[in-house]
């Protein structure tokens, strides 16, 4: 179609076309020639897409913006010299030439230079990574381990070439010479981060120093210094790499970071146990100053010596004083000795006096102890007993009195009651008695008995008491008849012997009559 490519049509060509027919290779070759001539040197800005580093060391990547994508190749030599690690998302400026690959109908940019698109791009990337690692807690203050006061072995991870290791060693020698193990690494470029991380982990994998350690084996340092001299942000980039940051975070050995100058900050500074502004500064933080310690020690030694001497001096002074005060002890003893002698002298006298005093006291007591005293005592006790007895009697009387007081009203109530009861019975008895009197008296006389009364009014109870010729009164039930006693008849002999004292008329009757009359006189 291009006018330059037009050529006369071949014989079998379609009618009406005068384009010369060319081969695919001829076309591809023409494209390649035209492109490479026109775009021999370009400078392109874009964002890195997929980045691959092949085993060969060549770097393959996409460079893109919102509308297009271009493939990039960076050959091993140029890629290995990069000061930063190209990664997806990073905005870069790439210089190179456009070329085509005829085998695939593709074109690509062969880059020989690549750099981040301004410091801002890398800083943005660094900031994002720092925040992510901080969120993991890798920078937390409580993860920091203390730096040993005086390490025996210091491990240094840095480049074996250049000023850094020399500065560190120089300052260590000045301050406090120690054993130093240097783990040489690349500190910039593609391989730097991997080597630095491996060195940190390598030091941690060593065995701590011990007396029975095999000869030739490498002891583990007490302290690590990871150092690099100053440079651009790209130069220091390896110390921002995650692999280095994580190795430092995992280190069991306390670690001092010293990367770049004081104003440079890399991510290893955040994770280190201590950040030194420079490699020299790291050496200063790693060891104390030996001369100062010697001076301190000498000072302590001097103070200790003077301290103990002063103590001993004080003791000696105290002792001397005590000894001086001990000498007049003889005087101190004089008075007690005198008192002792005096006391000894009067001791026997005092004993006798004491004995006498007790004797007289005994006598006084003994004199009071006699039968009089005892009887006196008994008398007192008797009085007391009498007094108690009187009190008992009085209280009994009072008790009886109290009871009597209660009894008085009771008896007052009892008397009328008794009178009523007795009155009742008296009337019954009276009426019964009258009834009995009339019945028996009348009955006896009515049954034929009679009472014989003598002149003097006495009842004639025995016949023998009557004198013949004596006038008597005979009382019948219906009246009284006068009679005269006759002398006893012969027929009455039997009766006479039997009843010499019986009445003359009716021996049994007078007896009974007299009896009846005796009873009747009661009334």
């Amino acid at each position: 179609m291009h006018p330059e490519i037009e050529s006369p049509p071949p014989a079998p060509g379609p009618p009406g076309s005068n384009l010369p027919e060319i081969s695919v290779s001829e076309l591809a070759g023409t494209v390649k020639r035209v492109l490479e001539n026109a775009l021999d040197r370009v400078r392109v800005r874009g964002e890195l897409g997929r980045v691959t580093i092949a085993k060969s060391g060549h770097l393959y990547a996409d460079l893109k913006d919102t509308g297009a994508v271009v493939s990039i190749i960076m050959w091993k030599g140029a890629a290995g010299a990069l000061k930063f690690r190209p990664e997806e998302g990073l905005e870069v400026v790439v210089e190179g030439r456009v070329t085509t690959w005829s085998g695939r109908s593709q074109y690509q940019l062969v880059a020989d230079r690549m750099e981040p698109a301004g410091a801002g791009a890398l800083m943005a990337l660094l900031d994002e990574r720092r925040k992510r690692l901080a969120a993991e807690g890798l920078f937390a203050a409580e993860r920091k381990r203390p730096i040993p006061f005086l390490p025996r072995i210091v491990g240094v991870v840095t480049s074996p070439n250049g000023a850094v290791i020399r500065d560190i060693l120089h300052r260590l020698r000045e301050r406090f010479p120690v054993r130093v193990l240097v783990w040489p690494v690349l500190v910039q470029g593609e391989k730097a981060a991997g080597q630095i991380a491996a060195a940190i982990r390598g030091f941690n994998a060593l065995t701590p120093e011990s007396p029975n350690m095999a000869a030739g084996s490498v002891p583990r340092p007490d302290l690590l210094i990871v150092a690099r001299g100053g440079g651009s942000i790209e130069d220091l980039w390896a110390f921002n790499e995650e692999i280095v940051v994580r190795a430092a975070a995992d280190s069991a050995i306390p670690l001092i970071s010293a990367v770049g100058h004081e104003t440079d900050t890399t991510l290893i500074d955040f994770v280190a146990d201590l950040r030194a502004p420079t490699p020299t500064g790291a050496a200063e933080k790693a060891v104390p100053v030996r001369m100062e310690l010697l001076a301190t020690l000498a000072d302590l030694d001097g103070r200790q010596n003077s301290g103990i001497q002063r103590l001993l001096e004080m003791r000696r002074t105290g002792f001397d004083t005590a000894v001086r005060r001990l000498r007049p002890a003889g005087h101190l003893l004089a008075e007690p000795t005198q008192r002792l002698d005096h006391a000894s002298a009067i001791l026997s006298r005092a004993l006798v006096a004491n004995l006498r005093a007790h004797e007289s006291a005994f006598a006084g007591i003994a004199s009071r102890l006699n039968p009089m005293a005892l009887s006196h005592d008994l008398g007192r006790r008797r009085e007391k007993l009498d007094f108690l007895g009187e009190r008992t009697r009085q209280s009994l009387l009072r008790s009886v009195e109290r009871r009597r007081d209660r009894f008085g009203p009771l008896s007052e109530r009892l008397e009328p009651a008794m009178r009523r009861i007795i009155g009742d019975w008296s009337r019954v008895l009276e009426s019964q008695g009258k009834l009995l009197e009339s019945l028996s008296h009348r009955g006896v006389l009515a049954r034929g008995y009679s009472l014989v009364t003598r002149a003097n009014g006495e009842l004639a109870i025995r016949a023998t008491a009557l004198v013949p010729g004596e006038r008597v009164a005979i009382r019948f039930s219906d009246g009284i008849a006068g009679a005269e006693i006759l002398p006893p008849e012969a027929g009455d002999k039997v009766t006479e012997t039997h009843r010499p004292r019986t009445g003359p008329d009716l021996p049994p009757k007078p007896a009974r009559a007299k009896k009846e009359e005796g009873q009747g006189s009661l009334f």
Partner: protein
Amino acid sequence: MSETGQAGTEISALSFERALQELEKIVTLLERGDVALEDSIRYYERGAALKAHCEKRLKDAQLKVEQIVLRAGGEVSTEAASFE
């Protein structure tokens, strides 16, 4: 001796820092002077031993620089280096 906690510790096992700290404590005690005579002598003897221990550590100090050499198979060894 209770004020110096590690009084019974073998001095050779003490780190420089611990030994120095204990020595400072002993010196302070002796300077203050309110220790019994027997104790003060024990303190002094201990202090002298601590001082000798620290001094030895300071006198023995010398720079010895080695460089890590990685052998095939990852074995770690060292060789003397000067970096001058």
